[in-house]
């Protein structure tokens, strides 16, 4: 089980305001169709895993105050960061600036850098998004091992791949 309301348990190095903003938007994006306790279908480098997601409930008023696209994008970031913390034990080093071809710089247990590109969609095409993001993350390979995560809120479904020498 992953509690999205407690992102800092996976990434204590994240500033509190940033962790709360990401968690809040994940809750809003998920709650369009699901309730806390939903099962996420996760593909981890090709291995199929099911993981339960929980989050603090939000209200319709909360959702009305947030741009829907932003909630989808930031919600996907929250889920992807929680997944890499839980399943890969990658530690966040920093967020990257726009134009860096990836969103986050992370570090694995061996001290190797990983550049993670994250994409979120509510109900859009998954595979096309994945192909696009693979290409984008590859451009950031000079900074670290490229990794990609795509999250779709419809089912919900997520994929995490890369970030190792085998990939």
């Amino acid at each position, binding site marked *: 089980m992953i509690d999205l309301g407690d992102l800092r348990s996976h990434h204590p190095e994240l*500033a509190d305001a*940033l962790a709360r903003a990401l968690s809040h938007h994940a809750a809003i994006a998920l709650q369009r169709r699901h309730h806390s306790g939903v099962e996420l279908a996760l593909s981890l480098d090709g291995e199929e895993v099911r993981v339960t997601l929980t989050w603090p409930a939000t209200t319709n008023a909360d959702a009305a105050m947030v741009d829907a696209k932003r909630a989808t994008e930031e919600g996907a970031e929250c889920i992807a960061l929680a997944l890499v913390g839980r399943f890969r034990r990658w530690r966040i*080093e*920093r967020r*990257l*600036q726009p134009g860096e071809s990836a969103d986050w710089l992370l570090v694995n247990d061996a001290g190797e850098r990983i550049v993670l590109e994250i994409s979120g969609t509510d109900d859009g095409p998954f595979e096309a998004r994945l192909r696009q993001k693979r290409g984008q993350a590859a451009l950031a390979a000079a*900074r670290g091992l490229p990794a990609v995560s795509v999250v779709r809120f419809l089912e919900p479904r997520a994929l995490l791949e890369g970030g190792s020498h085998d990939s």
Partner: protein
Amino acid sequence: MTPDPTLQNLNARISEEIFFAGRAAQGSMEAQSAYLRISALEEQIARLTAPDAVDGALARVGAVSAALRAGDWLRAARLVDEFMEDAPADVAEELRALGREADDAARVVQEPDVRPVRFHLEAA
């Protein structure tokens, strides 16, 4: 690998600044001042890291690109000059490209686009 606490703190702050700068309208005063703060944080990280290390390269390129996003081409040009002194080839290439952007921005300021306008005065 135990992270340097000062660097870790700067990384946490810059992550937060970059995240919230992304929410500001592009080119707005809010975005410009956020990118000035980001440029200053990147510069601090650059001073604590080696130019050929991943975090050092990111910080050097990031300090300049953030200054350009903030509209401060003078600061961008100064940082390019300073960071070029010890930059490895790949970082130098990125810095040179950003330096050209700073030069272009400076040219627009120094050579404003003023054109003559023709008009007729007619008796009332």
